[in-house]
């Protein structure tokens, strides 16, 4: 297991390096123009222009910029915004806690919903509940997150407010002037609605996946063996079937944890949450390349860590993987 972990860790580092390089290349093939961002449309005297260019290191050849970029990265310095003088680290720090809370609860809810729906619909396959579940899980894939976010605001904010259904209202106290749904995120009730929106799309997908994976595993010979041993249906389901059925699901869960960032961006915008997602979207909008790149690196690193964890848990679930890798060395 140890060698396997080390090997996977090295692979992740290579992938992160490649992905970051890819992003760097994209940004610096045509360098964003910090000068016009700072000065607006005015033309600047050449001396000041040269100073600014030198400040961001844009006068250097690309490979020098590239190595400097990595040098700064190793020191934990993600660069400076073109637009204001804030460092990307500060910007990151401002948005991180909101995003982390949203993603944590979102991912947790996702797992809970996916497991519950997937398991029950597989156990009760063919029942009315299963069929409704199937239609629901297929249907939800057609709904973009920002639409379901707005819908959630309408159903759990606007409608209860207008109908005086206080028990259904997630937005108390009701904001004085309604722009977008401003939600008091410091309370438990406040984070649950956006987290649900984050969770529900991929939860539906994973639930479907788990259902079909379980149904396939249940046809396996070793399940028949388990019943023939005299085990109870519950024991067969949870001890023998579920662990095998999780093997393909874990992979999908990993990809969904990476994609969850895209979902979080939309959710933060819809609920006006001051997280990393909104920041990165706004920076992209104002062509503030260092901020987009800096935050992107954090997101990519997070994705690589998720991939690594998923692969390692994969090896824990399926003994064939770690033992085969041991056999080679």
């Amino acid at each position, binding site marked *: 297991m140890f060698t396997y972990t080390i090997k996977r860790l090295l692979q992740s580092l290579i992938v992160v390096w490649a992905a970051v390089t890819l992003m760097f290349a994209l940004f610096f093939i045509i360098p964003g123009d910090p000068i016009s961002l700072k000065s607006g449309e005015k033309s600047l005297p050449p001396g000041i222009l040269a100073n600014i260019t030198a400040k961001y290191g844009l006068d250097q050849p690309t490979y020098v910029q590239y190595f400097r970029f990595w040098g700064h990265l190793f020191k934990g310095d993600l660069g400076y915004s073109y637009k204001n003088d804030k460092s990307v680290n500060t910007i990151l720090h401002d948005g991180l806690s909101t995003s982390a809370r949203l993603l944590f609860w979102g991912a947790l809810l996702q797992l809970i919903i996916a497991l519950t729906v997937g398991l029950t619909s597989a156990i009760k396959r063919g029942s009315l509940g299963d069929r409704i579940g199937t239609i629901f899980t297929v249907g939800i*894939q*057609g709904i973009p997150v*920002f639409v379901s976010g707005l819908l959630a605001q309408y159903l759990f904010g606007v409608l209860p407010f207008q109908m005086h259904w206080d028990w259904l209202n997630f937005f108390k106290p009701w904001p004085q002037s309604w722009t977008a749904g401003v939600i008091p995120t410091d309370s438990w009730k406040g984070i649950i609605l956006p987290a649900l929106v984050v969770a529900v799309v991929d939860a539906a997908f994973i639930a479907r996946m788990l259902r079909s994976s379980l149904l396939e595993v249940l046809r396996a010979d070793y399940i028949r063996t388990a019943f023939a041993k005299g085990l109870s249906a519950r024991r067969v389901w949870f001890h023998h079937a579920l662990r095998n059925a999780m093997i393909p699901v874990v992979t999908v869960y990993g990809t969904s944890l*990476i994609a969850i960032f895209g979902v979080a961006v939309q959710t933060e915008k819809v609920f006006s949450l001051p997280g990393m997602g909104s920041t990165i979207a706004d920076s*992209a909008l104002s*062509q503030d*390349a260092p901020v987009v790149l800096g935050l*992107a690196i954090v997101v*990519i690193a997070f*994705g690589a860590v998720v991939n690594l964890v998923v692969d390692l848990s994969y090896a824990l679930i399926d003994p064939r993987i770690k033992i085969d890798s041991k056999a080679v060395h």
Partner: protein
Amino acid sequence: MSEFEQIPQSLSYWQDVRARFFANKISILGLVMLVLLIFIGIIGPFISGWKYDELGPDILSAPFQKGHWFGTDDLGRDLFTRVTYGIRLSLTVAIIVTIISVFVGVTLGGLAGYFGGWIDTLISRFIDTWQVIPFVLIGFAIITVFGSSFWVIVAALVFTGWYSTTRLFRASVMQVKSLEYVEAARATGATTKRIILRHIGPNAIPPIIVVLAFSVAGAILSESVYAFLGVGFREPTPSLGVMISGSRNFLTEKPFVFFIPGSVLVLLTLSIVLIGDGLRDALDPKLRGVK
């Protein structure tokens, strides 16, 4: 010989697929929905009597009033016209993106799958790298650098979608290639061209059709997400995402401004997802002959 009498009527593969697709009520529902939406998208702008960017005097007027079937937005523009243009735009962009993605996927996936070896290693590792980047980031990066014109948006969408088609086609080719009837064809002395055209191609296509459907749905969703976040199409372009983004401030007072483009977008993607789902079941050779 009595044993032959038991054989049911012979159907070619595609006849069988068609029969099974049309036996599935949900996929027919999807097909009907899509046809209706396309129909509205084509004729809508001609029959509404308004232009999509024409500012009118009636601001946020409710549906079926003052000659606006779906009402007007905050600038007094006719929502019906804008929504029907939105359908056109979504589908146009999605189809262009899908064609390019499938072209890239078939080429790269086919190369990796058929030849294997270092080509496969190279392409597969590239996909691995690409996969750790969340899709919005790729779009953000491209749009940050190049701005948001039509073709940049198309390119951003291709960059978010190419690797799933590539991966799927690679897997499909590898699977078909290892089948015994391909070896049997080689053993008869068939040329590589004949093997690819008659044996591998036709059998690797069904998964591509399914990918095609999901890729169209995915491109529509991604386009609307970019538009909503402000990094895709922008006002006054009548993208459904743009319209929904603009509706946020009126959710309390005039919810129809959100619900109309919102439900059109949902119905559009949903109909394609349902068709894709039906196709997947109909094309699955394992389910062949099962009614």
